[in-house]
């Protein structure tokens, strides 16, 4: 059934029917992905008076209202959680890229003393997984409990990304580095002026992946942060949508400041929260498609 390549030959009717069937199956997969997401978007934007008309398969809003989003925006805890999530994502990703690229550069220099030991260490970290409790106790001991830093610094270096970047640095032509050396450049200049500019596409891709990771992180936040003012959005989302803790999200103040509030639908409000949590991912998603998928398709995967 597969590998039906007949370039240059006119397709028979049977071939065309076969391809049409495949296209239909694939479009059905797309629909299965899209319908539940569009359904939540439709639910979140529907007029509260008509929300009952929205079925589980509706993909367009019934009427139009932004009341759900205005209720969320009026909730200080919700707004605060977005600020926290942005802070964790931006600071975290910057630290990820700086620390990972510095380490990748150092580890790919043959002059690094003890290079073999460090590489062994990287492999040990890749294969040995420390338990949750020992990690928790260390974070507690060094005083990072209830600090955003405990969340920001989690996965500062993803070992797999480190290795990808190392392979990238290894492929930079030696002649380029030698030429800079002859001109009197030290490692600092080589790193900043040659390696980093060359690695821009790789760093952009890793930055997107690190960024999405930080934005989506909720578990470390849930065990290390105790102050709700410090919670990131995903954690608020989990409390509200997964644990069904409605009180956490809707302050009484927010409820009374809207005329439509009396008709508010929890399902619609939950849908709005999910949509807000997806927005940054949707914004960077075209970039991910552009950088990563294109890189994989054109350069071949590095298995």
């Amino acid at each position, binding site marked *: 059934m*597969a590998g039906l390549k007949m370039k240059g030959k006119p397709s028979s009717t049977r071939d065309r029917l076969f391809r049409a069937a495949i296209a239909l199956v694939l479009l059905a997969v797309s629909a299965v992905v899209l319908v539940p997401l569009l359904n939540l978007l439709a639910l979140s934007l529907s007029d509260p008076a008509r929300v009952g008309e929205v079925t589980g398969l509706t993909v367009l809003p019934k009427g139009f209202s932004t009341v759900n989003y205005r209720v969320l925006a009026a909730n200080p805890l919700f707004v605060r959680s977005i600020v926290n999530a942005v802070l964790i994502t931006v600071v975290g990703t910057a630290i990820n890229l700086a620390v990972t690229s510095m380490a990748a550069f150092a580890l790919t220099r043959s002059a690094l003393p003890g290079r073999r030991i460090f590489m062994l*260490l990287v492999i040990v970290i890749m294969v*040995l997984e*420390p338990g949750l409790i*020992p990690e928790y106790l*260390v974070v507690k001991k060094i005083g990072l409990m209830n600090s955003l830093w405990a969340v920001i610094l989690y996965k500062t270096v993803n070992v797999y990304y480190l290795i990808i970047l190392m392979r990238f640095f290894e492929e930079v032509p030696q002649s380029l580095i030698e030429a800079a050396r002859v001109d009197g450049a030290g490692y600092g200049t080589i790193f900043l002026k040659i390696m980093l500019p060359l690695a821009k596409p790789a760093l952009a891709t890793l930055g997107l992946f690190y960024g999405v990771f930080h934005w989506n992180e909720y578990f470390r936040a849930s065990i290390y942060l105790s102050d709700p003012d410090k919670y990131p959005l995903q954690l608020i989302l*989990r409390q509200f949508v997964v644990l069904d803790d409605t009180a956490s999200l809707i302050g009484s103040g927010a409820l009374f400041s809207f005329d439509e509030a009396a008709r508010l639908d929890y399902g619609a409000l939950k849908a709005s929260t999910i949509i807000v949590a997806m927005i940054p991912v949707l914004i960077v998603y075209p970039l991910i498609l552009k950088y990563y998928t294109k890189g994989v398709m054109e350069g071949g995967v590095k298995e």
Partner: protein
Amino acid sequence: MHKPGTLRTRLRQEGFLIVLLVPALVYFSVYHLVPMAGMVLAFQDFRIVGPSQWVGLKHFRLLFSSPSFLGVLKNTLIISSMKIILFFPLPIAFALMLNELRSVFVRKFVQATAYLPHFLSWVVIAGVWISFLSPSTGGANQARGLLGLPPVDYMTSKSAIRWVLFASETWRSLGWDSIIYLAALMRISPSLYESADMDGAGPLQKAVYITIPELAPTMITVLILNLGFFMSAGFDQVFNMMNDSVISAVDILDTYVYRIGLLNMQYSFSTAASLFKGVIGLVLILGTHTAAKKVTGKGLW
């Protein structure tokens, strides 16, 4: 300015490289190495004040005689088997189908939609699925209604919940995991198919004699590398999709470690379960790495 090659310059340059490595080393120490050493807690009784006391294998004996732990182990193996072995052919089929598409627009549209869920958090995905599977308002049950079938409360059904995990994992990973096969398919030389055409080979013969053999190394690599994570079974997914009604069917090692460790504060017992998982994971990863290297010439590192 020193000339390159003098001892002082060399020392300074080497020192600079070490400095570049220091932040990573600090991170590895705090989140990996010290906690790894902290796994000795599995052989101790944890005390908040004062030194912990050595108790040998006490917590492991408790672990293996605990019926809840054995159930958790069974769940982990079942859920992992579904997500690794049962799921395995799906991205391959997806890539093969995508490869047949002639319309660039349809192809790009299908790819763009199918890769998207990989980037959504499990909290978001759980929210989407809980809503979609709702017995009263969810799309899945409304589709059942159209076929004249009675609604099912999938999220609280012990017999359905593992399939919910399998289905939502497929929803999230089908597209993304097909990329590696799609890239492998694109590397197959078209001349192979052309000569097969000249020999009068049909589509099935071309699949059996060209496509499958050409994809085989990629399939083996993917399968082997995934087996290395067999004991994990997907913490974030289970953690966000489980509830009290189905906990006995979906509680896996990692959720168990979390619950007895952080919620019940049985630090030593929980660490013993972690260590058990870590040791098996280590054996699996080293084993699969060796196997991958033997079969395909490439391992994890």
